[in-house]
């Protein structure tokens, strides 16, 4: 056993000696706790400084709160492309000023030229780009998927957040209803579906019925005395288009939704249609291609000039669809002249009355003139009736100068013709929202357009209109908000085996856009 180390002071029994037993310099003794703490502090200091130095060398990884979206990935390492030094990029800060907002927006607008929301917006309430389109949320983040609150910040009390304007006299102003979310209670009904602005007299009920007959809506039975329209009454080309495989020419025609409403991504060769920029810019198949007379009506609806000729006259004898009043007059006069001369060329020289004096040149051809006048008058009346079946007509005064007949004739003096009023059928019904038919292709057409189906239209027609009746241009055949919220709502639990309701997205931007929305529609106004 080694001896103990000597004690600094000899101890004894006196107080002084006993006090000497205490090591009064104990605080000079190294405390391993204090030593370890000192070294750890130094280590922590070095670690902190080292970490920051590493951050200065590898800035994006250390200073960026997250990866930018893939559309901005090329500028991931170039923060100053979007961030102005010491200038807030968002609006919800204490230090945001018009100058900082302008500076940050300018960086965005260097690449993104976008339209404002609406002319009625209040300028200082409009946020900066980054206030809505927050980045640094990961590569796959959708910068256009802004939160509902960016919309409801104003639309919850929209009357306070837009410039008031005088609504048009012929229609109510757009809704001031507060919108806080999409459901039946917090979102108004779709304004553009309130009323059908179209002036085309068309019956989905009749055209969807077997044989294209009139009849009761809820029953598939047709009247016994109904005249059925058969495939054989169509031209060969149209039969090939409409007749189902294995069908007979004597079979009654059965149209389907797709007979007229095509969702092709592009037009076929030779198919000329006027398509709105909105539809053309939408996703392929999002909206149906426009229905045109030549493509969808002419197969059955030829436009003869009289009721005595063939139902499907040749092209030269059929009234061109879409012709204006002056053109129609010239067409009918020319047709009458051609037919009269073809029937008997001698009418050119046949005087109307016996001539006591040598015949004048004016007298010659009077018979032809009368014949033509008579034919034109009859054709005009017939064509007018034909047009009225589908269109609303307006009076169209015409000067005699454009007539093929002498100005002194009654036909030339007949000043009042008619023109077809614009149909005003909306090319896109939901004018303030997007809809994609392609995304809803798993649903049957009848689920949203029940009124267009005579077998399921019971109870859908407004009061006063016949069910599946001949005219449905005064009723909207598009299901509204109530059908949307069945799926576009929070997921609702369902018992096992039953389909789950809800679950589809129902945020604002699911249907609505922001930039370039223009002024809100007034009811009754075409988009």
């Amino acid at each position, binding site marked *: 056993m080694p001896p103990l180390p000597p004690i600094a002071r000899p101890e004894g029994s006196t107080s002084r000696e006993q006090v000497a037993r205490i090591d009064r310099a104990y605080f000079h003794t190294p405390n391993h706790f204090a030593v370890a703490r000192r070294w750890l502090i130094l280590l922590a200091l070095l670690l902190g400084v080292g970490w920051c130095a590493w951050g200065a060398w590898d800035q994006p990884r250390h200073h960026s709160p997250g990866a930018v979206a893939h559309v901005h990935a090329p500028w991931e390492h170039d*923060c100053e492309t979007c961030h102005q030094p010491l200038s807030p990029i968002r609006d919800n800060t204490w230090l945001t000023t018009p100058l900082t907002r302008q500076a940050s927006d300018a960086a965005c607008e260097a690449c993104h030229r976008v339209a404002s929301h609406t002319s009625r917006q209040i300028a200082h309430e409009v946020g900066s780009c980054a206030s809505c389109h927050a980045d640094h949320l990961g590569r796959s983040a959708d910068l256009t998927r802004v939160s509902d609150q960016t919309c409801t910040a104003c639309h919850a009390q929209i009357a306070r957040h837009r410039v008031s304007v005088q609504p048009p006299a012929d229609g109510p102003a757009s809704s001031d209803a507060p919108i806080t979310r999409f459901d039946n209670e917090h979102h108004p009904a779709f304004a553009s579906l309130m009323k059908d602005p179209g002036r085309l007299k068309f019956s989905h009920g009749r055209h969807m019925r077997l044989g294209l007959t009139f009849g009761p809506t809820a029953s598939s039975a047709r009247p016994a005395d109904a005249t059925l329209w058969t495939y054989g009454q169509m031209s060969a080309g149209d039969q090939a288009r409409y007749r189902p495989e294995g069908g007979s020419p004597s079979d009654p025609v059965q149209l389907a939704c797709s007979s007229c409403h095509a969702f092709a991504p592009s037009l076929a060769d030779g198919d000329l249609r006027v398509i709105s920029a909105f539809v053309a810019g939408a996703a392929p198949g999002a909206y149906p291609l426009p229905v045109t007379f030549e493509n969808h009506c002419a197969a059955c609806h030829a436009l003869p000039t009289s009721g005595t000729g063939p139902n499907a006259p040749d092209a030269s004898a059929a009234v061109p669809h879409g012709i204006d009043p002056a053109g129609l007059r010239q067409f009918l006069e020319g047709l009458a002249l051609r037919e009269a001369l073809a029937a008997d060329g001698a009418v050119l020289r046949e005087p109307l009355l016996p001539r006591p004096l040598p015949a004048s040149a004016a007298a010659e051809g009077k018979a032809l003139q009368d014949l033509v006048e008579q034919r034109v008058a009859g054709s005009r009346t017939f064509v007018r009736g034909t047009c009225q079946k589908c269109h609303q007509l307006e009076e169209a005064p015409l000067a005699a100068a454009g007539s093929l007949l002498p100005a002194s004739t009654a036909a030339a003096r007949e000043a009042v013709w008619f023109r077809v009023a614009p149909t005003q059928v909306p090319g896109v019904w939901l004018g303030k929202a997007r809809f994609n038919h392609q995304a809803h292709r798993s649903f049957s057409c009848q689920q949203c357009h029940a009124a267009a189906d005579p077998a399921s239209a019971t109870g859908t027609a407004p009061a006063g209109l016949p069910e599946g009746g001949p005219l449905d241009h005064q009723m909207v055949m598009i299901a509204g908000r109530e059908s949307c919220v069945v799926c576009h709502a929070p997921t609702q639990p369902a018992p096992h085996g039953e389909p789950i309701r809800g679950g589809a997205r129902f945020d604002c931007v699911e249907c609505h856009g922001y930039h370039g929305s223009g002024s809100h529609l007034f009811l009754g106004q075409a988009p």
Partner: protein
Amino acid sequence: MLVIIGGKTWPQDLRWILAGTASAVTAAGCYGWEWWTEGAIPGGSSRTGLVCGVAGGLIILFELLLWPRKRVRSWRLGSAQTWLRAHIWLGLLAVPLVLMHARLLFIGGWLNLALMTTFLLVIASGVWGLFLQQFLPTMLLEQVPAETIYEQIDHVARQRCRDLEKLVGALCVGDPHAPHDRTPEADDDGAEHAVVTGFRSLTGIQGKVLETVPVYSPIPGTLPIRRCFFTELRPYLLDGKAPGREGLASTAAAARRFAALRAESPPEAASLIDHLAQACDQRRQGDLQMRIHRWLHGWLLVHVPLSVSLAVLLAVHIPVALWYW
């Protein structure tokens, strides 16, 4: 040391708690409102987020000032207890403020993550230290009546061992087979008394005392005591609990050992054995004190260095955040 749970300072703590809770609830209300109106979790640059961040940063700065305040005790800037109380409650208030500033932890960037992680570790270590201080001092007071200055434990143990060596050398007969057991200090003085360190507890007052023991002549039959001292007691008194000496570290085992020693020793040596048992008990208390001391102060090895890292990271975070606002 601030005892909160059941402490006499509870009324003062309650004021801090109420003020801190009110501040946190107010901040949370503003934060929730901004969250609701903005539709997204407000970040550090948002109005509420920035206010929370500035408040949290100032609190962190104040927390760091406790260190210089402790080193410069001459500053008349409030009592140490007030500083410690503010350190604790403001530090806890900083947690919700910093969390709100940090977008409820939905943050990115390694600098921010390192800063937030460090902050949470500092808070966690501080809370752990606060928790330990709620009962360890009481345990120390109750179970270590012979408490001494931590740095002096080994010195006192050596002193006590020397005293007992002298006592054993004077009162016990020599061991002819182990002449080196007789230390020079025990032989040379020929004193008629010895001084040993004792412990007394009287009417609630407790502490160490120096006791003078008269020494006459070696007591016959005390060779087992001498052997026990040099083979078992002395190593334990010098080094404390170690592998192979667990017996004396246990109160019950030590009692059994000394009972056996009394049985084989003459009655005149009872007082000597009492001194030896008491020395073992004090060594046991010293070991316990060292263990408690490590728990009481060990958390500071995490808390203080991480606070330094936190200060560095915070000092960089502020200009970076303002630059890329």
